[in-house]
């Protein structure tokens, strides 16, 4: 086994927009791949591992990357899988890439990836907003979490996007919590502005062995740890806060807690070491839930925690600093996840412009949440862990 630890050497976001006319998913993937390799100072000829959404082998054929290792992981799990493949000596340079354009065209319906097909869910008209609302409501009735606290999360993240020139909704703010509460109701307690948008775009990351970085231009960002918690397939069973397994441990409402514990333990880090939290933000409440599940505040304290300004870029726990899926972009299943990690890399490189968290050295990135019955985390650092 090679001892090379994995670092992220290149990241890239293509243009993001509500609709990218004249682009297709495949063209965006090609553009994103070349952009991330350029950022890493590498070329296609250096790549010997690939993870993309769906069938990686088709991309290996189309980009003539074979013979190459391929991964199967989705979202943040792909980043951990790529890092482990490098550490295990199965590949030296792994390209992770995903994009979407022209996928969501029926605007009378919610996006296709949000609609359940299971026979015990579909006839009730559920979709992601409703699934996550069922989780949020349970927290509200249990702990007294308020719509204003949810709106504070949405306003904070949307204000980040307002200041991010690459965000789809750049310059669309600033927002106050009242603005969120004044937007039309989608799935109570979520107003329109509590929800992610839908958009199009692509993105890519390039991971290499740490000892390779001496030759490369970018400041290395180390993958220090990761974790994944699953309770079942998304959108087929009741999205219940109290869903529990036979082994004990956190219930579904606390999903991600086990993953975070393991990631911190593996990295040799404490919660207090984290400088920036690039949390997945499909709906405003999910930030409150993850802050609790990951151990940044006590159970039930997430609402008051976000009210006190902790999560602003200038606060103690800055979250989702590119504007997230609410304001930066939400281009389908995989890009929305990978982009949390890309933003973590930008923060640790000091490339986040007006939204830079000064001196950020450790970032926690996350993907999905309790409405989806899974939650994954990745810990990034400017220094290799001991």
């Amino acid at each position, binding site marked *: 086994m090679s001892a090379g630890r994995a670092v992220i050497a290149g990241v890239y976001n293509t243009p993001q927009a509500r609709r990218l006319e004249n682009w297709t998913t495949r063209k965006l993937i090609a553009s994103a791949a070349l952009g991330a390799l350029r950022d890493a100072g590498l070329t296609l000829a250096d790549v010997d591992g690939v993870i993309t959404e769906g069938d990686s082998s088709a991309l290996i054929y189309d980009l003539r990357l074979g013979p190459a290792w391929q991964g199967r992981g989705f979202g943040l799990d792909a980043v951990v899988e790529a890092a482990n493949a490098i550490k295990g000596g199965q590949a030296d340079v792994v390209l992770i890439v995903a994009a979407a354009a022209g996928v969501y065209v029926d605007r*009378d*319906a*919610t996006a296709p990836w*949000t*609609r359940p*097909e*299971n*026979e*015990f*869910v*579909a*006839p*009730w*008209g*559920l*979709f992601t*907003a*409703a699934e996550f*609302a*069922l*989780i949020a*409501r*349970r927290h509200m*009735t249990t702990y007294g979490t308020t719509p204003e606290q949810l709106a504070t999360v949405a306003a904070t993240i949307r204000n980040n996007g307002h200041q991010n020139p690459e965000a789809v909704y750049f310059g669309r703010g600033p927002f106050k919590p009242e603005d969120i509460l004044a937007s*039309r*109701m*989608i*799935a*109570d*307690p*979520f107003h*329109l502005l509590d929800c992610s948008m839908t958009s199009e775009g692509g993105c890519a990351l390039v991971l290499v062995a740490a000892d390779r970085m001496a030759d490369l231009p970018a400041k290395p960002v180390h993958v220090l740890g990761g974790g994944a918690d699953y309770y079942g397939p998304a959108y087929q*069973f*009741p*999205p*219940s*806060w109290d869903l529990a397994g*036979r082994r004990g441990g956190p219930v579904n409402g606390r999903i991600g807690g086990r993953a975070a514990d393991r990631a911190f333990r593996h990295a040799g880090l404490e919660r207090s070491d984290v400088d920036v939290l690039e949390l997945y933000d499909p709906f405003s409440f999910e930030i409150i839930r993850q802050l609790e599940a990951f151990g940044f505040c006590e159970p039930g304290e997430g609402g008051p925690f976000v009210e006190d300004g902790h999560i602003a870029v200038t606060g103690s726990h800055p979250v989702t600093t590119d504007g997230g899926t609410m304001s930066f972009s939400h281009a389908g299943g995989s890009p929305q996840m990978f982009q949390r990690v890309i933003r973590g890399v930008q923060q640790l490189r000091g490339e986040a412009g007006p939204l830079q968290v000064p001196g950020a050295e450790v970032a926690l990135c996350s993907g999905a949440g309790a409405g989806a019955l899974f939650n994954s985390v990745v810990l990034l650092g400017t220094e290799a862990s001991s």
Partner: protein
Amino acid sequence: MSTPLAPQHGELPHAEPTELSAPFWNRCAEGTLTFQRCAACRSINFPPVEVCRECLDTDLGWEESSGRGTLYSWTVVHRPVTAAFTPPYAPAIVDLDEGYQMVTDLIGIAPEEITAGMPVEVDFHEVSPGLHLPYFRPSAG
């Protein structure tokens, strides 16, 4: 703002019942809510499954539910998933008295009057020919 929520009507998205789930839907058409119980460990399994989720035994039988329970969580949808649904409607999770949960939609109550833990009972409606759905409404007594 006190219009009670009503069942849907017309063609709704739904999967064709499988061999495993057909007994549930057939009994819905008769106005009876059912669930699977494992003969070996007595655990309830819902939605239906081939192998008991608790003990992995395969001897699963169907039992009738009282159709009564309490409201575990809910949302009121104003932007429907597709145009097939007429808003507002209220997806919910119900805790059945027998000790399991299911997804449903609440009817017969105005959105602003819904409260956590309220007693509810099943109320079947044929929303399109052959599709009998087990909605839930506030309990009569």
